[in-house]
């Protein structure tokens, strides 16, 4: 059993509290991604698990053992750093075997482990080079090799892909996922890239200002965010956030804007029931871009709402085109098929899947 348990973990640097009481239970073999904006404390939390920072208070258990006072070397962990942190004066071979060297692993076992992972990571032909002679992707592989080769029970990744170019990042992302499936070890992975979080994680912990806002599997975090922060952070382009007011006039609805351009978004029963009795309250209506599309271009479904607005700009991305339009002075993005796109200035008929709309309290930001 080598899960990780965090109990009321706190960390302060001087007077600044960076981690404000985090409880987290990570099961054996899980792939947990800590995601959040810069400065949210995710890297600090990882360093606390690694033992590179000392806890201010709370407990950390790895595999049931309390490791608060155990130095990094004795925690049975390996870590991949954002900067790779390869030893510049050592060859790739010595970089990878250094950890076994310091632990006095017999030479034969070292060679066997080196061979196994050099083959797995396809770096066998690079073993005699120095890190300075490698490309970014190769360095990344060596850094992974150095972590894997000791076969620890827990892997910690600190934004390992953020220094790679876009194409390589996607390749390495897939490889990390394959490696995890193959080795089945516990992984804690830090990133600020919500797509990495979505694609890799078995569970995502969305962090903000030293707290975990939501801890759930990727689908839940995406479709069922607990508050405005999580909803806004996950998804690209981000969720549209529309300020409005909850009204009941022949069924619950959200009123946005006023005057002739006012829009009335009717709420389906499922959502209406959840907010029953909250009429008149100021709320935020969350609509993901992919739930707004050109009217009549998708199979008809229940609870669709159709409205017209002029296109402000259109942004082709290839597979889809983003159409920016305005409601009550706020920019919204709709995700339409390229053939449905129209240039700026034309009036466009939009269709919204109201069943996937999310309501948030305007004051607290919490999901309703």
């Amino acid at each position: 059993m080598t899960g990780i348990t965090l109990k009321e973990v706190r960390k302060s640097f001087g007077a600044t509290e960076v981690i404000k009481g985090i409880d987290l239970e990570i099961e054996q073999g899980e792939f947990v991604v800590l995601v959040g904006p810069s400065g949210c404390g995710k890297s600090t939390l990882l360093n606390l698990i690694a033992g590179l920072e000392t806890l201010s208070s709370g407990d950390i258990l790895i595999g049931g053992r309390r490791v608060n006072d155990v130095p990094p070397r004795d925690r049975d962990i390996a870590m991949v750093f954002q900067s790779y942190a390869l030893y510049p004066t050592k060859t790739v071979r010595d970089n990878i075997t250094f950890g076994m060297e310091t632990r006095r692993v017999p030479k034969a076992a070292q060679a066997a482990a080196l061979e196994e992972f050099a083959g797995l990571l396809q770096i066998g032909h690079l073993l005699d080079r120095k890190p300075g002679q490698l490309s970014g992707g190769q360095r990344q592989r060596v850094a992974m090799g150095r972590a894997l080769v000791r076969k620890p029970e827990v892997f910690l990744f600190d934004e390992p892909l953020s220094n790679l170019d876009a194409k390589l990042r996607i390749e390495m992302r897939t490889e990390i996922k394959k490696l995890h499936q193959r080795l089945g070890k516990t992984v804690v992975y830090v990133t600020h890239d919500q797509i990495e979080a979505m694609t890799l994680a078995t569970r995502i912990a969305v962090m903000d200002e030293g707290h975990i806002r939501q801890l759930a599997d990727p689908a839940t975090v995406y479709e069922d965010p607990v508050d405005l922060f999580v909803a806004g952070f996950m998804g690209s382009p981000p969720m549209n956030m529309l300020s409005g007011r909850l009204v009941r006039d022949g069924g619950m609805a959200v009123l946005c804007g006023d005057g002739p351009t006012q829009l009335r978004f009717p709420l389906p029963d499922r959502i209406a029931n959840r907010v029953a009795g909250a009429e008149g309250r100021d709320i935020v209506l969350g609509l993901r871009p992919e739930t707004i599309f050109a009217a009549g271009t998708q199979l008809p479904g229940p609870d669709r709402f159709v409205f017209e607005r002029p296109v402000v700009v259109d942004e082709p991305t290839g597979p889809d085109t983003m159409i920016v339009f305005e409601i009550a002075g706020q920019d919204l993005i709709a995700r339409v098929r390229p053939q449905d796109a129209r240039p700026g200035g034309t009036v466009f008929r939009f269709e919204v899947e109201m069943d996937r709309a999310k309501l948030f309290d305007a004051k607290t930001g919490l999901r309703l």
Partner: protein
Amino acid sequence: MKQASGIVRPKGWRQNVQRVLLFVVLGLFCIYYLVPLFVMVSTSLKSLAEIREGTLLAPPRAISTDAWAKAWNSACVGVRCNGLAPYFANSVFMVVPAVLISTFLGALNGYALTKWRFRGADTIFALMLFGAFIPFQVILLPMARTLGELGLAGTIPGLVFVHTVYGLAFTTLFFRNFFIGVSSGIVQAAQIDGAGFFGIFFRIVLPMSIPAIVVTVIWQFTQIWNDFLFGIAFTVGESNPVTVALNNVVNTSTGVKEYNVDMAAAIIAALPTLAVYVVAGAWFVRGLAAGAVKG
């Protein structure tokens, strides 16, 4: 003239005139700096008679190395007439351990101050920096007292001790500033890989700091070899370093003034620093190049 590569420059007669002017000025500066060296070398190769007849700038008519031989092994330093050789050896015995110890301790200090941050590290560093600004005349008396207590007064090991202590401020400064630029991730990675304080220092950090080591060695060697104040204050007669001995050769008040021997002796005393600069300088440039491509 064809420009192979580099920044595009304007062409035309004005530019040509400016470049000629530039090189004339640079040439004049070169001559200005090189003339004294030329006079020293040429004088040291002349005989006394030739020095008296000729002018200062005239090259030697008949090259003679007698003055060099005399400066090395028979010139009179004070009352002993063994030349500079024994004092040169004194300087070597002083400079080698002093440079090695102060450089090593400086590297260790810089590493501890930057990569193993502890409470008060900045204060300690600031206090150490004071050492770089203390005029050495101020500490002559207390240091003489200290050396006496330690039983090192008037000896080469005593001089090694003094130079090590007062070199630490600079060597620590050099290494601290170098290690500040070394990624802390490397040290963290090594910690997770299971290496301890000294393991990381010797196996990871020190091999990375060749450029800093070379700069520090050049600096320390030049400072310590050329030192006169500590040499004359803390050693006596036989244990004098070569700088003090050179002074005694040149300032001898008896007999004929042997300019050729003086010049040869001065060059001999200066050669090691030149040699270190040439040899280590090549390493220095190589170290910089290695640093430029490191990951």
